[in-house]
């Protein structure tokens, strides 16, 4: 298998009692990408992530980690920030980081050095000896993030990494994520905040009811869900403008217009037609937001008959 794949997940199945949480999931996560793992609550994302992080083991199917069959020893090469996370509240920040990093295979001295560097970068160096419970929630979150990344994992898995962070800290963490990506470390990023996914991810996979219902490059996905809707902005008010009957109008304002042309009608001809009546300042093709795609796909795949994709 190609070394450019960080993860190759093949037909993974996990069943809990009568619930099939993962029903034959196949996914490829290339190296050096930020990969958005999306899905509604209860879709099976956490189940999948727990199998990738070797917390649980698939009932059937294979997970290939950088060309090797996934084993317990690979846990040390991953950094996982779970959605349900916490720290020992009564332990000092530095001691706690050293402990968690030692469990990832770092020597104590090395763990301390790395931790201090990150604490410094995150403006927490002076809190190294404070107990975790004395820190603000945002700062605890940053300590947790350091514990996830300071052993330089080959794969990062972040579940809602920005929850509870202010814009400044969000930016700080986003920068670090991008640095890891630039250094070739793949990042699996799971969140319900679609605008964050649009902003950060290059590839996405959408899981619903234990199956992958949509996967691919972000741009390709969005192109695929184009509706043909066009957005025009005008120089003059358009109250007087009368549109041809075959045009479908979605939205009409004093200076703007959202519409779709019937199949086969040329966009350029339509612009020329508009320009005879008013001056078109700007036009663009409206691509649906990820949010809209998410809702549409999840609703479409919710009913029992599985949709082939």
């Amino acid at each position, binding site marked *: 298998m190609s070394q450019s794949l960080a993860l190759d997940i093949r037909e993974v199945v996990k069943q809990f009692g009568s619930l099939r949480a993962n029903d034959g999931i196949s996914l490829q996560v290339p190296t050096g990408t930020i990969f958005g793992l999306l899905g509604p609550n209860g879709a099976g994302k956490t189940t999948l992530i727990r199998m990738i992080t070797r*917390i649980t083991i698939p009932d059937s199917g294979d997970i290939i980690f950088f060309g090797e069959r996934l084993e*317990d020893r690979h846990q040390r090469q991953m950094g996982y920030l*779970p959605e*349900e*996370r916490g720290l020992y509240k009564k332990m000092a920040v530095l001691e706690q980081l050293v402990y*968690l990093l030692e*469990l990832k295979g770092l020597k104590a001295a090395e763990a301390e050095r790395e931790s201090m560097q990150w604490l410094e970068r995150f403006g927490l160096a002076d809190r190294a000896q404070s107990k975790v419970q004395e820190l603000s929630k945002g700062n605890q979150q940053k300590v947790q993030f350091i514990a996830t990344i300071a052993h330089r994992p080959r794969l990062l898995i972040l579940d809602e990494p920005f929850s509870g962070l202010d814009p400044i800290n969000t930016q700080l963490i986003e920068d670090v994520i991008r640095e890891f990506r630039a250094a070739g470390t793949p990042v699996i990023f799971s969140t319900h905040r679609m605008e964050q996914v649009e902003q950060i991810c290059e590839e996405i996979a959408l899981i619903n009811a234990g199956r992958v219902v949509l996967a691919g490059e972000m741009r390709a996905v969005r192109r695929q869900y184009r509706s043909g809707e066009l957005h025009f902005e005008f120089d003059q008010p358009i109250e007087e403008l009368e549109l041809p009957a075959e045009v479908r109008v979605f939205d009409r304002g004093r200076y703007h217009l959202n519409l779709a042309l019937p199949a086969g009608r040329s966009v350029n001809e339509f612009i020329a037609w508009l320009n005879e009546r008013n001056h078109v300042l700007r036009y663009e093709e409206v691509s649906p937001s990820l949010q809209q795609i998410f809702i549409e796909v999840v609703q479409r795949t919710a009913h029992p008959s599985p949709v082939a994709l």
Partner: protein
Amino acid sequence: MNPNFWIVFRREVRVRVRNKLFLIATLGTPLLLVAVMTIPALVSSQTETESYEIIVVDPTGRILPELQKAQEPSMRFAAATQPVEALKRSLVDQKGKAVLVLADDLSRSNFHAVFHSSQAPSLKFERTLAKKLDRILHEQRLLDAGLNLETVRAAEVNVDLTTRKITREGDEAASSAWGFILGYGMGFISFMMVFIYGGLLMKGVMEEKTNRIVEVMVSSVRPFDLMLGKVLGIAAVGLIQFAIWVGLIGLLLVVGGAILGLSGAELAAAQADGPTPEQQEMAAQIAAGLGQFKPALIGWFLFYFLGGYLLYGCLFAAVGASIDQEADAGPLTTIISIPAYIPILLIGAVMNNPDGPLAVWLSVLPFSSSTIMMARMALVDVPVWQVALSALLLAGSIVGSVGVAARIYRVGLLMYGKKLTFGELARWVRAS
């Protein structure tokens, strides 16, 4: 052993030993114990100074001379020279003065005597005085009955029964009093340790779950290593604490004894408030028992303490892993605890017949052996085959307990918001 096990183990020991509560319990317990043992002795040696000059109103005239014969510094007796009422009035605000009014008929079976003083004497003083009067009256009545006092005294016997135990090494002193104290003590301590440290363990596991750190942990450590690291870490803390206790108590007793100028036996006797002959006897027996204490017993104590703790502790850990809040722990811990309580309920019967079938069975079966075998070992020489069988069964059950607990642990750790039943737990064990 997996390196992650050692990292978890080390943290568990370090964090707990550094905890302030550990320090207080570890240093405070022996201090408290020694204080309980020495303060009464100290206090009673301080109150020794109580003494009275006692004016005796003795209508028969036969008791005062005898009292004066048995005079001692704390009780001096003199004859009354004034009427009783005047004597009593003169006592007001007079410390160390007293009037003793005796009855006038020696033949009555109930001899009435009244002790007047401005302050009530101590119970001990009262008892000593009553004893003196008792003996004098007894002798006077024997005289009245026409008996020769010399003959009566010669007929008095003091039976001194010592017990010797015959073993292969020859015969040695055997003290059943000491064996009883030791047996009960070791049985109870080993029982208590299981619950104290088992409870700590359960809380620790639960804390990881409620802190939500557990998912971070299990993405680095196998749940089995995590559980074993915690279980054995706390066992190590228990052993450290135990070692400190033994060392400190020994040190404090030696130092304290030296300061008071008392040996251990004297201390024990003084503590018993007034060294009556029987109590002195017992103290001497305890002192002799200390001498016959077998070091192997410490080794077995450690084995059975660890064994009992591991057997039950793993199950406590499993309970901690499968619940969300402490309130849910009740029913599950109760069920686990019942077998641990049985030996404590039956320890009295075992001590009375330490080689009987009940004792043998309870000391061999693993659920009770950690308590009962300790009690028996302190009391009698347990046959080798019974010890071997008991140790083997205990070790085997620990393996089983760890296995069951590990399965519950693995499933339970990541399970939130689910009210647990035993049926559910059994399913987890079978399923994984």
